[in-house]
């Protein structure tokens, strides 16, 4: 039964991916991609990675889809002729891509057995962190440096997006509200956010011990904020507002501060004092959740569209 479900899932994923590759118009391709994202989330459930499944559904399907739809709507009246590639290019690309896929399939079918894994090592070290969810432990303890760098990546992407504003608008606010706000959107934006915030807080809280965590929670918060801004209930803030900037960096800053405190208190950068690891990690996660929510929201909002106030 499960095997059948898997096959159907895989078939659906491949069909949707092919649809994205072949669709005539971008809008259809993006709708297909959003569906692909949610299907992929199911696939991750089947791979027993609930953490990833939540992230994939929130980001891959949700926020990325929103981002793509917005830009598609913006650039739709592109008058440039949609030149298609020459047949020879298509044929060569098809051959090479099939070759790559075949090579990968060969490797995947021949992966060593028994499979090498860090699961035992991760489990053995879990006690020292006081956490129950090993993925959170990897993200915030064992490989905390990766996560820290990743947060810098996120912020830097935002710096890059903001740098695309025209000079006279720099520092101003982005504009999300469409010319006409559809009634259902307006309604949803009024009703959903309280629930969203609740779910986010829950996810953040259980993240230490069960699937879920800072990134998933942050994404849901971001989605709620975006909804409010899209419906025009609240305007997007000026990108140079100090409060906004503070919220952006509070997560990474707390993370870094804890890292440096590790020098003094736990004998090394990003080391946690024995016994106090869990509360410290929760503190970092709380700050990160806020920052992620704000960063994602601003990333989707794009560069400034209005001159800064005052």
């Amino acid at each position: 039964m499960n095997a059948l479900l898997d096959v159907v899932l895989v078939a659906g994923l491949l069909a949707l991916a092919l649809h994205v590759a072949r669709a005539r118009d971008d809008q259809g391709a993006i709708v297909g991609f959003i569906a692909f994202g949610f299907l992929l989330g199911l696939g991750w459930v089947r791979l027993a990675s609930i953490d990833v499944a939540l992230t994939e559904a929130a980001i891959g399907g949700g926020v990325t889809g929103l981002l793509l739809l917005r830009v598609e709507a913006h650039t739709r009246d592109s008058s440039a002729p949609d030149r298609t590639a020459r047949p020879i290019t298509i044929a060569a690309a098809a051959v090479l891509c099939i070759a790559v896929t075949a090579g990968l399939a060969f490797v995947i079918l021949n992966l060593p057995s028994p499979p090498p894994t860090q699961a035992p090592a991760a489990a053995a070290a879990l006690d020292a962190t006081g956490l129950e969810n090993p993925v959170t432990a990897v993200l915030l303890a064992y490989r905390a440096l990766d996560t820290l760098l990743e947060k810098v990546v996120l912020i830097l992407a935002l710096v890059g997006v903001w740098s695309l504003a025209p000079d006279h608008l720099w520092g101003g606010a982005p504009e999300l509200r469409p010319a006409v706000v559809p009634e259902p959107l307006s309604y949803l934006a009024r009703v959903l956010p309280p629930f969203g915030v609740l779910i986010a807080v829950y996810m953040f809280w259980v993240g230490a011990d069960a699937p879920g965590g800072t990134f998933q929670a942050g994404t849901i918060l971001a989605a709620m904020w975006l909804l409010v801004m899209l419906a025009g209930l609240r305007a997007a803030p000026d990108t140079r507002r100090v409060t906004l900037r503070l919220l952006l960096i509070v997560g990474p800053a707390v993370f870094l501060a804890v890292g440096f405190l590790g020098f003094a208190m736990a004998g090394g950068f990003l080391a946690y004092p024995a016994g106090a690891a869990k509360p410290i990690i929760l503190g970092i996660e709380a700050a990160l959740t806020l920052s992620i929510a704000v960063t994602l929201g601003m990333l989707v909002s794009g560069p400034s569209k209005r001159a800064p106030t005052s």
Partner: protein
Amino acid sequence: MSALANAPFYVTTSGGYLLVLAIILPAVAVLAMLLVPPRHVARIAFAVMAAGLAVALVIVAELVGTGMALAYVVGGWQPPLGLALRADGLSAAMLAMTAVVICATGLFARFHQCLEPETQDGRAATTFWPLLMAIWSALNAIFVGEDLFTLYVALELLTFAAVPLVCLDGRAETIAAALRYLMFALLGSLLYLLGAALLYGVFGALDIHSLSRLDGGAPAVTVALGLMIAGLLAKAALFPLHLWLPPAHAGAPAAASAVLSALVIKAPVFLILRLVLDVAPSSAGPLAGQIFIGQILIGQILAVLGASSILFCSVMAFRQQRLKLMIAYSTVAQIGYLFIVFPLAAGTETLPAWGTIAWTGGALQLVSHALAKAAMFMAAGAVAEAFGHDRISDLGGFGRILPISALAFGLAGLSLMGLPPSGGFIAKCLLLTAAVTGGHPWLAATILAGGLLAGGYVFRIVDRALATPAVELVARRPIPRRLEAVALVLALAAVGVGFVPLQPFGFLQLGRPAVSAMVAP
């Protein structure tokens, strides 16, 4: 696993925390810059530059003092579960070079910004600094990172910092160039990530030390390495994957071009070096007396690409009508030299790759090209600033108006041509010696032809600098001496590298296995 394998390889050394600082200090600066008002951003940058330069120099001093690699186990979690940082001689040299070029670029950018006080606190000027700091952080992470996934994140950080720099002026052409750069770099990093996934599937670990000790017998390893190296080649813009580099590097502001051409493309090259030497299937390894055939095959493919890059892009550089495009094509050509190192530095039973003169030559080429190319882009920036354009044919006599820039360009050109006394000369001399003694006549011919073509395109500019045009060239605005002086200092540094000894350089072998017996005095 033997008992030896159970002893942790990575042990935090006394100066190990410096490696953390090298990565984190610029990252702290990025965060701080977001918070403060625009007028303070540059101050933070200069404070961090001073500190970062000191850190890099202390790392070098520490390495020389102890004669051992620096290492740091982050958070105390041993790899492969946790992450480690490590700096051997080559890494330390890269760190120091990066620090010097970043600091020079910072000064240049500041002087440049001072030319237009009204935009000094504007978008482009303010955004420049966090991007520069992020590049620094990413480069340092790449030079000392030991985990392939950390390196992936650092590579992406590097790309996301470099791309906005390209289109900082906000013109449509530069945005198109930046977008092309972003997309091709993304293609490259995804291929790299794909390879990393396969390697994890085979080994269950991604730290370079674990990978280097495991048997690379599985075909998965070869597929993974092929994907990763190809992905990195795309990011290094080696011919024929250089589509993005000329418009991107030529369109960026002068200070940004200097960093992009001098440093950013060196990061993937550095990683390829590590993959080929440390991860590529050495099967039984040198101890069993086998020559690493896998490395040799990869090396030959890379050398063919490198040689084509040298010849093809040197001709392209010669054909350019715009100064900055010429310098950009010259970058692609000069990167080629770093890839012909692979067959030349093929190690033997008794002499590991890093004990060969070609290894030293390659490292010197990397450093001297970074210094010379940064100097060249800065000089070109001063020229473009003074005359409002960089059309080579209309620059006749610019040497009389901007003598310091012309001198900097000429000295940097000396290094690119491989003429003495310069770092480029020593590098190419060592590579040529390796090619001659190792029986690679085609590579020797390529090195010489590349030098000739470089001579051609450099002299074209020098000739313009000395020319007397029919219509006297007039500077649009005066260029402050200190702006030009930064370029000159870097060019002099490139020449100064020429005074290192002409032999395998002991410092570059520090922290590499089995060198204690063969470090040259």
